[in-house]
């Protein structure tokens, strides 16, 4: 993929030029996003097709959460459309409207000290990181969402993972993952806070049906267009619980230490949603037997102890069960796609997640039998 590497190198140069000061350059991430550290700032090119208004609202919200989220230093749009933008078929599926600028959106951030896999080597860092992350999420969820905040991006990530899974072909694993996906309630749009008071049935993406469900697996474009609205609804969390400020993509890589304090980074999926989704990834790891139960309980206790609203303290799985199933499916799909594209067998972690999908399907079957 030499040409893409070249395009990526050009984009790195453009990001370096946007940094306010020169300094040593390190590419921190090169996936859907490109993140480059230049001296004491980090410059990030957001995914092609990112909606500018939504990103602005997310950045503004992050800027108004001192002590919880890292505040951005600036937002730019690259003048020229870069190659990646034109290549990205998912971006095209969003049907750019006339006059939409096609250059990548770029944000500038103070460089924090990121928690990295190396920190886990000595075995002392994880507990502190888990507790700090839990407390920051609790504070985030307790913050009132600013007006006109877009929906949180977590459910959209599940949908993208399922679309990618549909593209890699068929295997025993992919069938198991799709079956587990079907145990989630029907895809339903998360009530958009900006359309409050409007009956949800008015919305073109509302009215979930088994047809929509099948579309999720076979029509990438359609599904992506419903991307950030599609969600899976569970056993009715209370209204407050479903309308909290939610990070949307939390994992240990989303923690940095800046000026002595841990902060959350990456507001790309920040928005209004069910905050239990922010706990769902570690919950899925725990349920798959991957995350040490002690670390999981440390995390959850710190969250509840800091006043976290996402779960009932006496029965957290009431709210966690559905989002944890959703994240299990998403993580299993992503890991399986990665392995199939590389032509390699599933590693232990991927296999544990696919097994988890199998248990989800079995548990759903038992529940149906119990009801029938």
């Amino acid at each position, binding site marked *: 993929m030499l040409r893409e590497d070249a395009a990526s190198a050009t984009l790195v140069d453009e990001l370096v030029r946007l940094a306010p000061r020169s300094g040593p350059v390190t590419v921190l991430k090169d996936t859907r996003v490109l993140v480059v550290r230049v001296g004491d700032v980090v410059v990030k090119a957001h995914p092609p097709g990112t909606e500018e208004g939504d990103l602005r609202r997310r950045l503004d919200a992050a800027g108004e959460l001192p002590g919880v989220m890292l505040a951005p230093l600036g937002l730019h749009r690259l003048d020229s459309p870069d190659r990646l933008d034109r290549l990205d078929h998912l971006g095209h599926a969003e049907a750019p409207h006339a006059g939409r600028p096609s250059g990548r959106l770029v944000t500038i951030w103070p460089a924090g000290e990121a928690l990295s896999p190396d920190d886990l080597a000595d075995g002392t860092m994880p507990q502190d990181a888990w507790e700090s992350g839990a407390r920051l999420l609790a504070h985030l969820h307790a913050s009132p969402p600013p007006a006109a905040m877009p929906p949180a991006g977590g459910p959209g990530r599940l949908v993208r993972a399922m679309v990618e899974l549909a593209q890699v072909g068929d295997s025993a694993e992919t069938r198991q993952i799709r079956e587990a996906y079907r145990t989630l309630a029907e895809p339903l749009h998360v009530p958009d806070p900006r359309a409050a008071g409007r009956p949800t049935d008015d919305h073109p993406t509302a009215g979930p049906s088994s047809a929509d469900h099948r579309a999720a697996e076979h029509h990438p474009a359609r599904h992506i267009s419903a991307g950030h609205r599609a969600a899976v609804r569970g056993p009715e969390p209370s209204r407050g619980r479903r309308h909290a400020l939610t990070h949307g993509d939390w994992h*240990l*890589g989303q923690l940095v230490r800046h000026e002595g304090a841990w902060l959350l980074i990456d507001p790309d999926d920040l928005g209004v949603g069910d905050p239990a989704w922010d706990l769902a990834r570690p919950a899925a790891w725990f*349920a*798959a*037997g991957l995350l040490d139960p002690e670390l999981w309980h440390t995390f959850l206790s710190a969250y509840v102890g800091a006043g976290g609203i996402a779960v009932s303290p006496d029965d957290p799985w009431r709210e966690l069960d559905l989002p944890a199933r959703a994240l299990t499916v998403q993580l299993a799909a992503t890991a399986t796609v990665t392995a199939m594209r590389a032509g390699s067998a599933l590693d*232990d972690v991927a296999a544990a997640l696919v097994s*988890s999908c199998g*248990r989800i399907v079995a*548990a759903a079957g038992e529940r149906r039998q119990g009801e029938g």
Partner: protein
Amino acid sequence: MECPKCRGHMRTFDRNGIHIEQCDNCKGIFLDYGELESLTRMETQWAQQQYAPPPPAHGGPAWGAPHGGGHYGHHGHRNRSWVGMLFSS
């Protein structure tokens, strides 16, 4: 003293505050008043320390994996892949 059962010789032992007599011949044991209760209490305490599972702090889902292997993240291959997952979307 003499064993009430076989008339053998009984030897006295003191263990952790419990005073017992054991017959050298039939190995039968004689307990003083209240010592059976003391033994029972100590046995219960010991069993609680040994076997009581940690309180189920937050429960788990019906579809959760059985935990208890105690092997989290120690194996080379699994460790790399697992640590990667902790840090990626």
